[in-house]
Protein backbone atom coordinates (compact mmCIF):
# COMPACT_ATOMS: atom_id res chain seq x y z
CA UNK A 1 0.00 0.00 0.00
CA UNK A 2 2.81 2.36 0.82
CA UNK A 3 4.38 1.40 -2.45
CA UNK A 4 1.44 2.65 -4.50
CA UNK A 5 1.35 5.87 -2.48
CA UNK A 6 5.01 6.39 -3.10
CA UNK A 7 4.42 5.76 -6.76
CA UNK A 8 1.60 8.26 -6.79
CA UNK A 9 3.71 11.09 -5.41
CA UNK A 10 6.58 10.05 -7.59
CA UNK A 11 4.51 9.82 -10.76
CA UNK A 12 3.03 13.22 -10.02
CA UNK A 13 6.51 14.69 -9.89
CA UNK A 14 7.88 12.73 -12.83
CA UNK A 15 4.95 13.48 -15.09
CA UNK A 16 5.24 17.21 -14.59
CA UNK A 17 6.42 19.29 -17.51
CA UNK A 18 9.99 20.45 -17.84
CA UNK A 19 9.40 23.96 -16.56
CA UNK A 20 7.52 22.70 -13.53
CA UNK A 21 10.28 20.21 -12.81
CA UNK A 22 12.91 22.93 -13.06
CA UNK A 23 10.91 25.13 -10.71
CA UNK A 24 10.56 22.29 -8.23
CA UNK A 25 14.28 21.57 -8.37
CA UNK A 26 15.16 25.21 -7.86
CA UNK A 27 12.78 25.52 -4.95
CA UNK A 28 14.12 22.38 -3.38
CA UNK A 29 17.66 23.74 -3.57
CA UNK A 30 16.57 27.09 -2.15
CA UNK A 31 14.65 25.39 0.63
CA UNK A 32 17.66 23.28 1.48
CA UNK A 33 19.97 26.29 1.60
CA UNK A 34 17.54 28.32 3.64
CA UNK A 35 17.15 25.55 6.19
CA UNK A 36 20.92 25.27 6.35
CA UNK A 37 21.23 28.96 7.06
CA UNK A 38 18.42 28.79 9.57
CA UNK A 39 20.27 26.21 11.61
CA UNK A 40 23.61 27.93 11.15
CA UNK A 41 22.34 31.36 12.19
CA UNK A 42 20.51 29.82 15.08
CA UNK A 43 23.75 28.38 16.41
CA UNK A 44 25.71 31.56 15.68
CA UNK A 45 23.24 33.81 17.45
CA UNK A 46 22.89 31.46 20.38
CA UNK A 47 26.64 31.35 20.93
CA UNK A 48 26.94 35.12 20.41
CA UNK A 49 24.32 35.74 23.05
CA UNK A 50 25.94 33.34 25.50
CA UNK A 51 29.36 34.91 24.97
CA UNK A 52 27.96 38.41 25.36
CA UNK A 53 26.30 37.50 28.61
CA UNK A 54 29.44 35.88 29.93
CA UNK A 55 31.59 38.87 29.03
CA UNK A 56 29.17 41.36 30.52
CA UNK A 57 29.17 39.40 33.73
CA UNK A 58 32.97 39.36 33.78
CA UNK A 59 33.24 43.04 32.92
CA UNK A 60 30.82 44.31 35.51
CA UNK A 61 32.04 42.03 38.24
CA UNK A 62 34.71 44.63 39.03
CA UNK A 63 37.73 42.92 37.49
CA UNK A 64 40.72 44.99 36.50
CA UNK A 65 40.28 46.21 32.91
CA UNK A 66 43.92 45.61 32.09
CA UNK A 67 43.86 41.95 33.08
CA UNK A 68 40.58 41.52 31.22
CA UNK A 69 42.23 43.01 28.14
CA UNK A 70 45.22 40.69 28.46
CA UNK A 71 42.91 37.70 28.73
CA UNK A 72 41.09 38.78 25.59
CA UNK A 73 44.27 39.29 23.60
CA UNK A 74 45.67 35.92 24.61
CA UNK A 75 42.43 34.21 23.75
CA UNK A 76 41.45 36.17 20.68
CA UNK A 77 40.41 33.23 18.47
CA UNK A 78 37.42 32.24 20.49
CA UNK A 79 36.02 35.34 22.04
CA UNK A 80 32.62 36.83 21.46
CA UNK A 81 31.64 39.97 19.57
CA UNK A 82 31.34 42.14 22.63
CA UNK A 83 34.76 41.13 23.87
CA UNK A 84 36.21 41.99 20.50
CA UNK A 85 34.66 45.43 20.66
CA UNK A 86 36.09 45.90 24.10
CA UNK A 87 39.49 44.70 22.97
CA UNK A 88 39.61 47.01 19.95
CA UNK A 89 38.54 50.01 22.01
CA UNK A 90 40.96 49.41 24.80
CA UNK A 91 43.85 48.72 22.43
CA UNK A 92 43.26 52.03 20.70
CA UNK A 93 42.94 53.76 24.03
CA UNK A 94 46.24 52.41 25.37
CA UNK A 95 48.00 53.33 22.13
CA UNK A 96 46.72 56.89 22.27
CA UNK A 97 47.60 57.14 25.90
CA UNK A 98 51.17 56.05 25.16
CA UNK A 99 51.61 59.10 22.93
CA UNK A 100 52.29 62.12 24.99
CA UNK A 101 50.22 65.21 24.46
CA UNK A 102 46.88 63.77 23.40
CA UNK A 103 44.02 65.19 25.35
CA UNK A 104 41.30 63.19 27.04
CA UNK A 105 38.51 63.71 24.54
CA UNK A 106 40.73 62.66 21.62
CA UNK A 107 41.62 59.46 23.42
CA UNK A 108 38.04 58.60 24.14
CA UNK A 109 36.96 59.53 20.64
CA UNK A 110 39.66 57.35 19.12
CA UNK A 111 38.66 54.43 21.29
CA UNK A 112 35.05 54.96 20.40
CA UNK A 113 35.83 55.03 16.67
CA UNK A 114 37.79 51.82 16.95
CA UNK A 115 34.91 50.21 18.82
CA UNK A 116 32.43 51.46 16.24
CA UNK A 117 34.45 49.89 13.44
CA UNK A 118 34.65 46.54 15.21
CA UNK A 119 30.97 46.80 16.02
CA UNK A 120 30.13 47.25 12.32
CA UNK A 121 32.24 44.27 11.42
CA UNK A 122 30.63 42.12 14.07
CA UNK A 123 27.16 43.14 13.00
CA UNK A 124 28.05 42.34 9.46
CA UNK A 125 29.12 38.91 10.52
CA UNK A 126 25.97 38.33 12.56
CA UNK A 127 23.71 39.53 9.79
CA UNK A 128 25.34 37.56 7.02
CA UNK A 129 22.95 35.23 5.14
CA UNK A 130 19.96 36.90 6.72
CA UNK A 131 19.22 38.61 3.43
CA UNK A 132 19.12 35.21 1.80
CA UNK A 133 16.43 34.13 4.22
CA UNK A 134 14.53 37.33 3.53
CA UNK A 135 14.58 36.93 -0.21
CA UNK A 136 13.72 33.25 0.06
CA UNK A 137 10.73 34.17 2.14
CA UNK A 138 9.49 36.76 -0.26
CA UNK A 139 10.34 35.22 -3.61
CA UNK A 140 9.90 31.48 -3.38
CA UNK A 141 6.07 31.57 -3.12
CA UNK A 142 6.04 33.47 -6.39
CA UNK A 143 8.40 31.00 -8.01
CA UNK A 144 6.18 28.17 -6.83
CA UNK A 145 3.15 30.00 -8.11
CA UNK A 146 4.81 30.42 -11.46
CA UNK A 147 5.40 26.67 -11.67
CA UNK A 148 1.79 26.02 -10.73
CA UNK A 149 0.38 28.45 -13.25
CA UNK A 150 2.56 26.96 -15.93
CA UNK A 151 1.44 23.43 -15.05
CA UNK A 152 -2.22 24.43 -15.01
CA UNK A 153 -1.85 26.14 -18.36
CA UNK A 154 -0.40 22.94 -19.66
CA UNK A 155 -3.21 20.79 -18.40
CA UNK A 156 -5.84 23.17 -19.72
CA UNK A 157 -4.22 23.16 -23.12
CA UNK A 158 -4.62 19.40 -23.26
CA UNK A 159 -8.29 19.96 -22.47
CA UNK A 160 -8.74 22.11 -25.54
CA UNK A 161 -9.00 19.33 -28.11
CA UNK A 162 -11.31 17.18 -26.05
CA UNK A 163 -15.04 17.22 -26.63
CA UNK A 164 -16.35 16.13 -23.29
CA UNK A 165 -14.32 17.92 -20.70
CA UNK A 166 -14.23 16.11 -17.39
CA UNK A 167 -12.53 17.00 -14.18
CA UNK A 168 -10.55 13.78 -14.38
CA UNK A 169 -8.70 15.09 -17.40
CA UNK A 170 -7.31 18.17 -15.66
CA UNK A 171 -7.14 17.03 -12.07
CA UNK A 172 -3.81 15.17 -12.25
CA UNK A 173 -2.14 18.04 -14.06
CA UNK A 174 -3.36 20.54 -11.52
CA UNK A 175 -2.32 18.29 -8.65
CA UNK A 176 1.19 17.96 -9.99
CA UNK A 177 1.35 21.67 -10.63
CA UNK A 178 0.24 22.45 -7.11
CA UNK A 179 3.20 20.50 -5.75
CA UNK A 180 5.35 23.40 -6.96
CA UNK A 181 3.37 25.85 -4.83
CA UNK A 182 3.61 23.50 -1.88
CA UNK A 183 7.38 23.33 -2.14
CA UNK A 184 7.56 27.10 -2.52
CA UNK A 185 5.53 27.64 0.60
CA UNK A 186 7.53 25.07 2.46
CA UNK A 187 10.67 27.00 1.60
CA UNK A 188 9.15 30.41 2.33
CA UNK A 189 7.36 29.99 5.63
CA UNK A 190 10.31 28.90 7.78
CA UNK A 191 12.53 31.43 6.05
CA UNK A 192 10.17 34.29 6.93
CA UNK A 193 9.73 33.11 10.49
CA UNK A 194 13.47 32.65 10.95
CA UNK A 195 14.25 35.99 9.35
CA UNK A 196 11.92 37.87 11.65
CA UNK A 197 13.11 36.00 14.68
CA UNK A 198 16.80 36.40 13.92
CA UNK A 199 16.64 40.04 12.95
CA UNK A 200 14.88 40.71 16.23
CA UNK A 201 17.56 38.80 18.14
CA UNK A 202 20.34 40.60 16.30
CA UNK A 203 18.71 43.98 16.97
CA UNK A 204 18.68 43.23 20.65
CA UNK A 205 22.30 42.16 20.54
CA UNK A 206 23.15 45.37 18.68
CA UNK A 207 21.44 47.43 21.35
CA UNK A 208 23.45 45.63 24.00
CA UNK A 209 26.66 46.26 22.10
CA UNK A 210 25.89 49.92 21.64
CA UNK A 211 25.02 50.51 25.25
CA UNK A 212 28.16 48.67 26.28
CA UNK A 213 30.15 50.96 24.00
CA UNK A 214 28.66 54.00 25.63
CA UNK A 215 29.28 52.69 29.09
CA UNK A 216 32.82 51.65 28.29
CA UNK A 217 33.53 55.10 26.84
CA UNK A 218 32.39 56.54 30.13
CA UNK A 219 34.72 54.21 31.98
CA UNK A 220 37.62 55.26 29.75
CA UNK A 221 36.73 58.91 30.18
CA UNK A 222 36.85 58.46 33.93
CA UNK A 223 40.29 56.83 33.64
CA UNK A 224 41.66 59.78 31.66
CA UNK A 225 40.25 62.17 34.25
CA UNK A 226 41.93 60.21 37.02
CA UNK A 227 45.26 60.24 35.15
CA UNK A 228 45.19 63.95 34.40
Amino acid at each position, binding site marked *: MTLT*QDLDLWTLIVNASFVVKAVMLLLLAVSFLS*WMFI*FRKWMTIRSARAQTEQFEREFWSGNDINSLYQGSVNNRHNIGSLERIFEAGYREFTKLRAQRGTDASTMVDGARRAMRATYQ*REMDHLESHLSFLASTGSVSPYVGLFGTVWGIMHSFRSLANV*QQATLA*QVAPGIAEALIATAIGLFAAIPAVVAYNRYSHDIDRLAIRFESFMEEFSNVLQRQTVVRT
Partner: protein
Amino acid sequence: MNATAANTMFDERIDPGRITSFLLAAAMHLALFAVLVFGVRWQNRPPEAVMVELWNEPPVAAPVVVEPKPAPPPVAVRPDPVLVKPDIAEKAPPPKPRAEPPKAPARPRDEEAQRQIREQLQREQTSFAVEREQQLLKEQLARDADAARRRGLLDYESKIRTKVRGNIVLPPELQGNPDAQFLVVQLPTGEVLSTKLVKSSGHRGYDEAVERAILKSSPLPKPDKVELFSRELRLTFRPKEKD
Protein backbone atom coordinates in the same frame (compact mmCIF):
# COMPACT_ATOMS: atom_id res chain seq x y z
CA MET B 1 48.03 48.17 11.36
CA ASN B 2 45.18 48.06 13.70
CA ALA B 3 42.81 47.61 10.80
CA THR B 4 44.83 44.77 9.30
CA ALA B 5 44.96 43.03 12.64
CA ALA B 6 41.22 43.35 12.91
CA ASN B 7 40.81 42.14 9.35
CA THR B 8 42.79 38.98 9.84
CA MET B 9 40.86 38.43 12.97
CA PHE B 10 37.66 38.84 11.01
CA ASP B 11 38.74 36.52 8.24
CA GLU B 12 39.53 33.77 10.64
CA ARG B 13 35.96 33.64 11.79
CA ILE B 14 34.08 30.56 10.85
CA ASP B 15 30.50 29.93 11.64
CA PRO B 16 29.99 27.29 14.25
CA GLY B 17 28.33 24.11 13.10
CA ARG B 18 28.70 24.30 9.37
CA ILE B 19 28.43 20.55 8.95
CA THR B 20 25.87 20.20 11.70
CA SER B 21 23.53 22.66 10.03
CA PHE B 22 23.96 20.88 6.71
CA LEU B 23 23.05 17.57 8.30
CA LEU B 24 20.12 19.12 10.15
CA ALA B 25 18.77 20.62 6.95
CA ALA B 26 19.10 17.28 5.20
CA ALA B 27 17.29 15.57 8.06
CA MET B 28 14.58 18.21 7.91
CA HIS B 29 13.90 17.56 4.25
CA LEU B 30 13.99 13.82 4.67
CA ALA B 31 11.42 14.15 7.43
CA LEU B 32 9.22 16.30 5.24
CA PHE B 33 9.49 13.84 2.40
CA ALA B 34 8.58 11.00 4.73
CA VAL B 35 5.54 12.93 5.94
CA LEU B 36 4.49 13.55 2.36
CA VAL B 37 4.91 9.96 1.34
CA PHE B 38 3.51 8.20 4.37
CA GLY B 39 1.33 10.80 5.98
CA VAL B 40 -0.74 11.94 3.05
CA ARG B 41 -3.12 9.43 1.56
CA TRP B 42 -2.52 9.71 -2.12
CA GLN B 43 -5.76 8.82 -3.82
CA ASN B 44 -6.30 5.39 -2.41
CA ARG B 45 -7.65 2.82 -4.75
CA PRO B 46 -9.79 0.02 -3.43
CA PRO B 47 -7.39 -2.75 -2.51
CA GLU B 48 -6.92 -5.17 -5.29
CA ALA B 49 -7.06 -8.50 -3.58
CA VAL B 50 -6.23 -10.66 -6.55
CA MET B 51 -3.51 -9.75 -8.93
CA VAL B 52 -3.84 -12.71 -11.27
CA GLU B 53 -4.70 -11.74 -14.80
CA LEU B 54 -6.70 -14.28 -16.71
CA TRP B 55 -6.42 -13.78 -20.38
CA ASN B 56 -8.95 -16.42 -21.24
CA GLU B 57 -12.12 -17.66 -19.70
CA PRO B 58 -11.38 -20.20 -17.03
CA PRO B 59 -12.36 -23.73 -18.10
CA VAL B 60 -15.91 -24.59 -17.08
CA ALA B 61 -15.84 -27.16 -14.33
CA ALA B 62 -16.74 -30.54 -15.79
CA PRO B 63 -19.90 -32.07 -14.28
CA VAL B 64 -18.56 -34.23 -11.57
CA VAL B 65 -21.63 -36.37 -11.11
CA VAL B 66 -21.22 -39.32 -13.38
CA GLU B 67 -24.48 -41.11 -13.77
CA PRO B 68 -23.93 -44.68 -12.60
CA LYS B 69 -25.31 -46.17 -15.72
CA PRO B 70 -27.07 -49.44 -15.24
CA ALA B 71 -25.25 -51.59 -17.66
CA PRO B 72 -27.30 -52.42 -20.70
CA PRO B 73 -25.82 -55.93 -21.17
CA PRO B 74 -28.68 -57.71 -19.38
CA VAL B 75 -31.04 -56.42 -22.03
CA ALA B 76 -28.79 -57.62 -24.76
CA VAL B 77 -27.85 -60.87 -23.15
CA ARG B 78 -31.30 -62.32 -23.02
CA PRO B 79 -31.91 -62.61 -26.71
CA ASP B 80 -28.33 -63.46 -27.31
CA PRO B 81 -28.25 -67.01 -26.12
CA VAL B 82 -31.15 -67.87 -28.37
CA LEU B 83 -29.55 -66.49 -31.43
CA VAL B 84 -26.06 -67.48 -30.75
CA LYS B 85 -26.72 -70.97 -29.57
CA PRO B 86 -26.42 -72.81 -32.90
CA ASP B 87 -23.25 -70.99 -33.66
CA ILE B 88 -21.80 -71.91 -30.44
CA ALA B 89 -22.72 -75.49 -30.83
CA GLU B 90 -21.05 -75.70 -34.18
CA LYS B 91 -18.08 -73.69 -33.23
CA ALA B 92 -15.68 -74.06 -30.44
CA PRO B 93 -16.61 -75.38 -27.05
CA PRO B 94 -14.84 -72.68 -25.01
CA PRO B 95 -17.63 -70.11 -25.22
CA LYS B 96 -20.09 -72.75 -24.09
CA PRO B 97 -19.72 -72.41 -20.38
CA ARG B 98 -20.27 -68.74 -20.76
CA ALA B 99 -23.36 -69.07 -22.89
CA GLU B 100 -24.88 -71.82 -20.83
CA PRO B 101 -25.51 -70.10 -17.56
CA PRO B 102 -27.88 -67.50 -18.99
CA LYS B 103 -29.71 -70.17 -20.89
CA ALA B 104 -30.33 -72.44 -17.98
CA PRO B 105 -31.87 -69.90 -15.64
CA ALA B 106 -33.65 -68.18 -18.48
CA ARG B 107 -36.70 -70.28 -18.39
CA PRO B 108 -37.39 -70.56 -14.71
CA ARG B 109 -36.53 -66.92 -14.25
CA ASP B 110 -38.47 -65.59 -17.16
CA GLU B 111 -40.87 -63.58 -15.07
CA GLU B 112 -38.16 -62.42 -12.84
CA ALA B 113 -36.10 -61.30 -15.79
CA GLN B 114 -38.99 -59.40 -17.20
CA ARG B 115 -39.49 -57.74 -13.93
CA GLN B 116 -35.83 -56.94 -13.88
CA ILE B 117 -36.03 -55.44 -17.30
CA ARG B 118 -38.95 -53.34 -16.32
CA GLU B 119 -37.14 -52.12 -13.30
CA GLN B 120 -34.21 -51.44 -15.47
CA LEU B 121 -36.30 -49.41 -17.85
CA GLN B 122 -37.85 -47.52 -15.04
CA ARG B 123 -34.50 -46.74 -13.59
CA GLU B 124 -33.18 -45.65 -16.92
CA GLN B 125 -36.12 -43.44 -17.52
CA THR B 126 -35.80 -41.71 -14.21
CA SER B 127 -32.10 -41.25 -14.74
CA PHE B 128 -32.86 -39.83 -18.16
CA ALA B 129 -35.31 -37.40 -16.66
CA VAL B 130 -32.75 -36.33 -14.10
CA GLU B 131 -30.15 -35.95 -16.76
CA ARG B 132 -32.42 -33.91 -18.95
CA GLU B 133 -33.33 -31.70 -16.08
CA GLN B 134 -29.68 -31.13 -15.36
CA GLN B 135 -29.07 -30.47 -19.00
CA LEU B 136 -31.82 -27.88 -19.04
CA LEU B 137 -30.50 -26.27 -15.94
CA LYS B 138 -27.03 -26.16 -17.38
CA GLU B 139 -28.31 -24.64 -20.57
CA GLN B 140 -30.20 -22.06 -18.62
CA LEU B 141 -27.09 -21.21 -16.63
CA ALA B 142 -25.02 -21.07 -19.78
CA ARG B 143 -27.55 -18.77 -21.35
CA ASP B 144 -27.52 -16.52 -18.31
CA ALA B 145 -23.75 -16.47 -18.26
CA ASP B 146 -23.71 -15.78 -21.94
CA ALA B 147 -26.11 -12.89 -21.55
CA ALA B 148 -24.08 -11.48 -18.68
CA ARG B 149 -20.95 -11.85 -20.70
CA ARG B 150 -22.48 -10.14 -23.67
CA ARG B 151 -23.72 -7.37 -21.47
CA GLY B 152 -20.29 -7.00 -19.91
CA LEU B 153 -18.71 -6.98 -23.34
CA LEU B 154 -21.06 -4.26 -24.52
CA ASP B 155 -20.29 -2.32 -21.40
CA TYR B 156 -16.59 -2.71 -21.95
CA GLU B 157 -16.81 -1.66 -25.56
CA SER B 158 -18.89 1.36 -24.73
CA LYS B 159 -16.37 2.30 -22.08
CA ILE B 160 -13.61 2.17 -24.66
CA ARG B 161 -15.73 4.03 -27.15
CA THR B 162 -16.44 6.78 -24.66
CA LYS B 163 -12.79 7.25 -23.99
CA VAL B 164 -11.88 7.25 -27.67
CA ARG B 165 -14.77 9.56 -28.48
CA GLY B 166 -13.34 12.07 -26.05
CA ASN B 167 -10.20 12.18 -28.14
CA ILE B 168 -11.80 12.42 -31.56
CA VAL B 169 -11.42 15.78 -33.20
CA LEU B 170 -14.24 15.83 -35.71
CA PRO B 171 -13.30 17.21 -39.11
CA PRO B 172 -15.45 20.24 -39.67
CA GLU B 173 -16.65 19.33 -43.15
CA LEU B 174 -18.10 16.01 -42.03
CA GLN B 175 -21.64 15.33 -43.15
CA GLY B 176 -24.09 12.62 -42.26
CA ASN B 177 -23.41 9.86 -39.79
CA PRO B 178 -21.15 7.33 -41.49
CA ASP B 179 -19.68 4.56 -39.38
CA ALA B 180 -16.11 3.39 -39.43
CA GLN B 181 -15.05 0.01 -38.14
CA PHE B 182 -11.64 -0.59 -36.67
CA LEU B 183 -9.81 -3.66 -35.54
CA VAL B 184 -7.78 -2.77 -32.46
CA VAL B 185 -5.08 -5.03 -31.12
CA GLN B 186 -4.23 -4.35 -27.50
CA LEU B 187 -2.02 -5.68 -24.77
CA PRO B 188 -3.49 -6.90 -21.50
CA THR B 189 -2.51 -3.58 -19.98
CA GLY B 190 -4.79 -1.85 -22.46
CA GLU B 191 -1.95 -0.46 -24.48
CA VAL B 192 -2.88 -0.20 -28.12
CA LEU B 193 -0.56 -2.21 -30.34
CA SER B 194 -2.12 -1.46 -33.67
CA THR B 195 -5.29 -0.32 -35.29
CA LYS B 196 -6.60 -1.37 -38.65
CA LEU B 197 -9.40 0.14 -40.61
CA VAL B 198 -11.83 -2.66 -41.40
CA LYS B 199 -14.64 -0.66 -42.87
CA SER B 200 -14.14 2.90 -43.95
CA SER B 201 -16.74 5.49 -43.24
CA GLY B 202 -16.21 6.87 -46.71
CA HIS B 203 -14.75 10.02 -45.26
CA ARG B 204 -10.99 9.91 -44.99
CA GLY B 205 -10.75 12.75 -42.53
CA TYR B 206 -13.06 11.02 -40.13
CA ASP B 207 -11.25 7.67 -40.46
CA GLU B 208 -7.95 9.31 -39.65
CA ALA B 209 -9.40 11.29 -36.78
CA VAL B 210 -10.76 8.10 -35.23
CA GLU B 211 -7.49 6.27 -35.72
CA ARG B 212 -5.57 9.07 -34.08
CA ALA B 213 -8.05 9.13 -31.26
CA ILE B 214 -7.67 5.39 -30.65
CA LEU B 215 -3.91 5.69 -30.53
CA LYS B 216 -4.20 8.66 -28.21
CA SER B 217 -6.56 6.77 -25.91
CA SER B 218 -3.91 4.17 -25.17
CA PRO B 219 -4.04 2.64 -22.58
CA LEU B 220 -7.64 1.71 -23.16
CA PRO B 221 -9.88 1.20 -20.14
CA LYS B 222 -9.89 -2.28 -18.71
CA PRO B 223 -13.04 -4.38 -18.48
CA ASP B 224 -14.70 -4.90 -15.13
CA LYS B 225 -14.01 -8.61 -15.31
CA VAL B 226 -10.70 -9.81 -16.58
CA GLU B 227 -12.20 -12.64 -18.57
CA LEU B 228 -13.95 -10.10 -20.77
CA PHE B 229 -10.62 -8.94 -22.05
CA SER B 230 -9.83 -9.80 -25.59
CA ARG B 231 -6.74 -9.01 -27.51
CA GLU B 232 -8.55 -7.98 -30.63
CA LEU B 233 -11.50 -5.69 -30.53
CA ARG B 234 -13.74 -4.71 -33.34
CA LEU B 235 -15.02 -1.24 -32.66
CA THR B 236 -17.48 0.82 -34.62
CA PHE B 237 -17.52 4.57 -34.46
CA ARG B 238 -20.07 7.04 -35.62
CA PRO B 239 -19.81 10.83 -35.46
CA LYS B 240 -23.11 10.91 -33.60
CA GLU B 241 -23.96 8.38 -31.00
CA LYS B 242 -27.64 8.00 -31.86
CA ASP B 243 -29.49 8.88 -35.02
